[in-house]
């Protein structure tokens, strides 16, 4: 099991480029929950979500050579693949797009308990502090980051001015960034 091994992102990417199975399992163990959570923000169907997660990981694997670390972190790249795949599926299946503005309670109840214990960050602490995002900030971040809506679309969905969307987004990210600081 990969639990005893801890890769930094550079090592992980290097191993993945050599088609290393344990590296791939490590990737799955660390990010499947987060990516599944993203899919779940867009669709409610668990079976479909897991099908899509499977499809996404296969796609990540098959297209790994196209990942360019100079353009961003691995997870960002994976999230984009997963999100685009999910959105494409939802559109092709005639899903009605609905902005799901979850309140903090639901978000916390959906939060995974299964975060790898070797991770150096305190999941509970993060969760607590994630709740420091106010409703407005949270809805903007979720719609953009998890569901891939542009600022203009978010403005329409939430019925708030574009400027407000931009302000909330920046303030939300600065809150999240501050959460990282003690760990760095």
């Amino acid at each position, binding site marked *: 099991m990969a639990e005893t091994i801890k890769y930094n992102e550079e090592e992980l990417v290097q191993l993945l480029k050599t088609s290393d199975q344990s590296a791939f399992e490590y990737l799955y163990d660390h990010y499947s*929950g987060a990516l599944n959570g993203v899919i779940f923000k867009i669709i409610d169907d*668990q079976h479909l979500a897991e099908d899509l997660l499977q499809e996404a990981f296969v796609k990540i694997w098959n297209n790994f050579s196209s990942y360019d670390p*100079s353009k961003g972190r691995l997870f960002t790249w994976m999230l984009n693949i997963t999100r685009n795949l999910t959105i494409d599926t939802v559109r092709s299946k005639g899903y009605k797009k609905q902005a799901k503005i979850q309140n903090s309670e639901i978000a916390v109840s*959906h939060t995974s308990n299964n975060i790898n214990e070797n991770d150096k960050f305190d999941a509970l602490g993060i969760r607590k502090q994630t709740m420091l995002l106010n409703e407005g900030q949270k809805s903007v971040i979720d719609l953009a980051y998890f569901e891939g809506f542009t600022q203009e679309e978010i403005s329409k969905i939430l019925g708030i001015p574009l400027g407000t969307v*931009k302000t909330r987004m920046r303030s939300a990210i600065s809150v999240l960034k501050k959460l990282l600081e003690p760990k760095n």
Partner: protein
Amino acid sequence: MNKEEFISSGLLELYAMGITSSEETQIVEEHLKQFPELRQELDEIEKSLEKYAISNAIEPSSFVKQNIINQVFPQSVKKESQETPVVSINTNTKKPFSLFYKAIAAAVFILLIGSMILNYTYFNKYHTTQNQLAIAQQKLDEQESANQAMSHDLDVVTDKYAMPVVLNGTPHAPDALAKIFWMKNSGQVYIDPSNLPAVPAGKQYQLWGIVDGKPVSGGMIQTSKGVYQIQKMKSFGKVDAFAITLEKEGGSPTPTMDEMIVSAKM
């Protein structure tokens, strides 16, 4: 855009969230090349978003991982399948399949038990029926032979040439009676012994014809199984009298006159 202008534009955040247009993406990537220190800034934004995503994680079902591994590393699946002769192509549907097979196995088992019960029941019924059939067959056979005997008896009695002769009981057996049907055309003799007394063990009735003053054996009367049927005896063309004596089994060359049961003069 210089570095500060770029940072304050908020494009880096949008880029990190993957919601920039293609033109915006191009701008960001150009700036990243131009100002490598921006990579640090982007990295922090991405990390903070990544942690946010992880804090919103929902663990998928445990079998999803194996499905993906099987799909991505088919060789490892092959290796597994060599070690254990499980059809590994179906591993991704293992759960529903094993359930499916369990259901099939259960159904087969129930069918088997049901079949056994039916077999047992029908075998028993078959046996009973077989026995009943045998009994019915036997009854039918008996009836058949009784019928045949009766129609034979009737044929004899109703023959237009049949001359009935009644042999009356002697002082030895005053209640005894026998009837002879003598066919005048052919000389055939039939006897109806149904009113003769039961034969003691080891004895048998013998018919005699008195021809020219001498007794001539007319044959043994079959009274086996207590059935007294009209039966054919030896033919007599000419006879003065008929008599039946009780003789030892198989008959005697001459009649035991003391044991004469019935007689009739012609």
